[in-house]
């Protein structure tokens, strides 16, 4: 994926209680666990792992290990714990927030060899997979009767382990929900090397919902080695259309009307002029390039419900001023529409050499207002901003385009201001890409100190030494205090929230 070429070398993180260097003894131990072929230390090998999908951050790990089993993962984590060396888990490395950015001189645990589907249990609607299995492989393993709804644009390459870490969404999550709504069981390894089984095939097992806490924790609470997912029967009917409008605000009105009439589309996606032009150059699906917005609506469900609702949607689009409506007549036409949408990010490289992707979320009704503010900001900065939205859930992906290195800083500043607009509108700084390193400086825009302190409680319960993916999510490095005894009476003895800069 093309991205900014400006590179920021991230210095070694200094937030673990006592980060230790990667010693020859630890390397020997890692080789003994995974086999020498699966421990990479040559600079040329390590370069592959310097960044994830967000290329402007780089850090060189001390070693990359490629465990082949849950036992090997556990032993690698134990060895790191014994040595006091921080580690980062990595799936396919397609994340867009620097969540899998290595800790310089630390260990990077890549799960790419763990690609087995462990069990398919269709009568109970479950699949159990290793973390390196790709998102697409899950749906392939359970078709044609069932499917796995979360479908990030990178689904062909991205791993389920990464999806769990990031709580990945996708185009269909307005109706179907996110990764967190589908994970019913996890086997995880904590940073102290303890193996913990959370949930299973069953729901509502007694105790805290640690599954809910773990999914989306960006690799800071541990690493998962087996994942149980809920599956859905494939819909009887799927209908897809694309409507073109003269402006995003007219398309936005159509979205509001569709949702307020009680229609719950499987997907409802919007692209603006700039992204339509870029995508059209890349995939040639025949979208008109002189329109203000394209609105893709997909309905799925029972044949009867789908047909009735589809007529409603067409009527609403016409009433909202659609200049043209195209209805996919078959799977090939449906795929062409989706190819255009999913190509949008990659295709931006054709109209601008560099861009920042943002991932803000706003309440759906604030769409026209927020878009007007983004347009005004783009004019103020003299930069082009393309927009792709998951319109149903208000998730915006503004693409801030810039020409050369010298503009990078201003582009980043503009991106940050767009996020502030999203938060002011009552939204979020990230809908699906995660905080990682890229957005952690924006966390205080959205969360106050007591909120961050509560997040830290969770982090410290799972990983008091801060060995798992340190330096991510939280805006400033924090230490965990002593583990308090459960019945200690004096609050003053409780954890000191130390901050080291």
């Amino acid at each position, binding site marked *: 994926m093309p991205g900014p070429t400006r590179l920021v070398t991230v210095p070694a993180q200094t937030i673990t209680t006592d980060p230790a260097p990667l010693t020859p003894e630890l390397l020997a131990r890692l080789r003994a666990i995974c086999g020498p072929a699966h421990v990479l230390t040559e600079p040329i090998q390590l370069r592959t792992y310097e960044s994830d999908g967000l290329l402007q951050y780089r850090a060189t790990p001390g070693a990359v290990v490629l465990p082949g089993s849950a036992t090997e993962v556990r032993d690698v984590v134990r060895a790191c714990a014994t040595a006091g060396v921080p580690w980062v888990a990595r799936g396919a490395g397609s994340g867009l927030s620097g969540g899998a950015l290595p800790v310089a001189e630390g260990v990077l645990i890549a799960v790419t060899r763990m690609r087995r589907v462990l069990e398919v249990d269709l009568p109970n609607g479950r699949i159990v997979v290793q973390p390196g299995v790709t998102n697409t492989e899950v749906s392939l393993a359970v078709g044609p009767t069932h499917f796995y709804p979360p479908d990030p644009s990178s689904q062909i390459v991205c791993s389920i382990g990464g999806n769990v870490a990031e709580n990945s969404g996708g185009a269909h999550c307005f109706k179907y929900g996110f990764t967190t709504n589908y994970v019913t069981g996890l086997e995880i390894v904590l940073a102290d090397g303890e193996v913990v089984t959370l949930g299973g095939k069953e729901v509502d097992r007694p105790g805290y919902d640690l599954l809910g806490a773990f999914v989306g924790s960006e690799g800071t609470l541990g690493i998962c080695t087996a994942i149980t997912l809920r599956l859905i029967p494939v819909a009887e009917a799927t209908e897809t259309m694309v409507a073109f409008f003269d402006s995003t605000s007219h398309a936005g009105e159509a979205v509001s009307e569709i949702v307020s009439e009680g229609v719950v589309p499987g997907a409802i996606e919007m692209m603006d002029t700039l992204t339509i032009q870029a995508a059209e150059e890349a995939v040639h699906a025949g979208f008109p390039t002189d329109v203000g917005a394209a609105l893709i609506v997909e309905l799925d469900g029972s044949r009867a419900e789908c047909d009735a609702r589809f007529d409603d949607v067409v009527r609403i689009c016409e009433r909202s001023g659609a200049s043209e409506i195209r209805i996919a007549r078959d799977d090939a036409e449906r795929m062409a529409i989706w190819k255009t949408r999913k190509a949008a990010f990659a295709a931006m490289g054709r109209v601008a050499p560099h861009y920042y992707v943002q991932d803000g979320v706003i309440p759906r009704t604030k769409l026209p207002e927020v878009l007007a503010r983004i347009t005004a900001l783009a004019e103020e900065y003299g930069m082009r901003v393309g927009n792709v939205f998951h319109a149903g859930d208000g998730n915006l992906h503004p693409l801030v385009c810039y020409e050369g290195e010298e503009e990078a800083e201003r582009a980043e500043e503009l991106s940050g201001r767009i996020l502030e607009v999203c938060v002011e509108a009552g939204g979020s700084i990230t809908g699906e890409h*995660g*905080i990682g390193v890229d957005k952690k400086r924006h966390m205080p825009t959205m969360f106050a100190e007591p909120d961050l302190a509560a997040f830290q409680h969770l982090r410290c319960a799972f990983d008091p030494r801060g060995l798992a993916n340190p330096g991510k999510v939280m805006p400033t490095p924090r230490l965990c205090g002593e583990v308090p005894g459960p019945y200690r009476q004096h609050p003053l003895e409780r954890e000191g929230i130390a901050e080291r800069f």
Partner: protein
Amino acid sequence: MATETLRSETPQDAEDAAELLRACAADGIAVRFAGGATKAWGHAGGDDGLRLCTSALDTIVEHNRGDLTAVLQAGVPLRALDELLADAGQMLALDPPLGAGDAATVGGAVAAGDSGPLRHRYGAARDLVLGMTVALSDGSLARAGSKVIKNVAGYDLAKLFSGSFGTLGLITEVIVRLHPRPPDHATAVGATDDPAVLQDAALALAANSLEAQALDVRWEAGEGLVLARFAGIAATEQAAAAERLLGASGVQARTVEEDAALWTAQRTGQRSAKGAVVRVSGRPTQLAESCEAAKAAGATLVGRAALGLSWIALPAAAPAELVQAIAGLRDTLRPSPGVVLDAPAAVRAQLDPWDHPEDSALVLMRRVKARFDPTATCNPGIFVGGI
């Protein structure tokens, strides 16, 4: 529970509640949270300390119609909320039984992780809560999540607190996702006296692409029912299709258009005023086994067929008999955990209501509790492992 003997406080706002928690933590006093006080669940003995009632935290702070979200203080009664949302053609798809006097509150239902038939389509409380404000025993008020349906910023503490039975802190406010309220309903009902046939019919519906709003089963007095409710403009057509499918599965099938009473009975079946209710976290393919177990115990079962969840209600009996019956059910259904919900205090005192093993997950749960509530001020002793 001897809760009526407790000193009781009714904070007027979230800040008051947080301050009360801080003061009790400093004095070593346990705090017992009460919404509608309809669910005396968990370990017996949670009746010491001070009672904190959320009845004054009953404001519907925001109802964002266009965004299908609402911001609710924890003490908002689910029933009043439903009436308000109905006027707007919307609903909070959280429909647990409302308990005595229909007093259940949104905060109580979320804290207990309770649910009803709508869970089949719309998920559990944890799936409907977008954000949350909690008061912790250090006196802080912490927010997590947001007002938008899609958000991955920060840890998802709203899920951690859902179903935590107030043992990590007090939920003072929740932000929830709402859904359009479908105009029409129809239910396909299949009947059989053979648990194996009932399971096959339920599995056939669960695997089908018809999108049911609810898919339940019932076993009572030797007869089993599978109930598939459809909602929306094509409800009747879908119910007819489900009826055909049920017929093909070998059960007696019919369609009921005036179906409200059927579903009220399903919700009511999750509670028992005098007997005991065991909630089994099983698998859809264990339904026949669960029905057989209920049958053998003279109990009634209601369940979510596609989720594998069953509520087995044992009739009133002497405490020793109930304890024995519960142990028997658990043995039959193991390894699926059976959590005792409603039961006389004398019964809950003689067994572990949670049926949770001493494993590494429980160790981790204790670590979570120790970080959030190091003084063990919030509802101590009632949860898994005596948390």
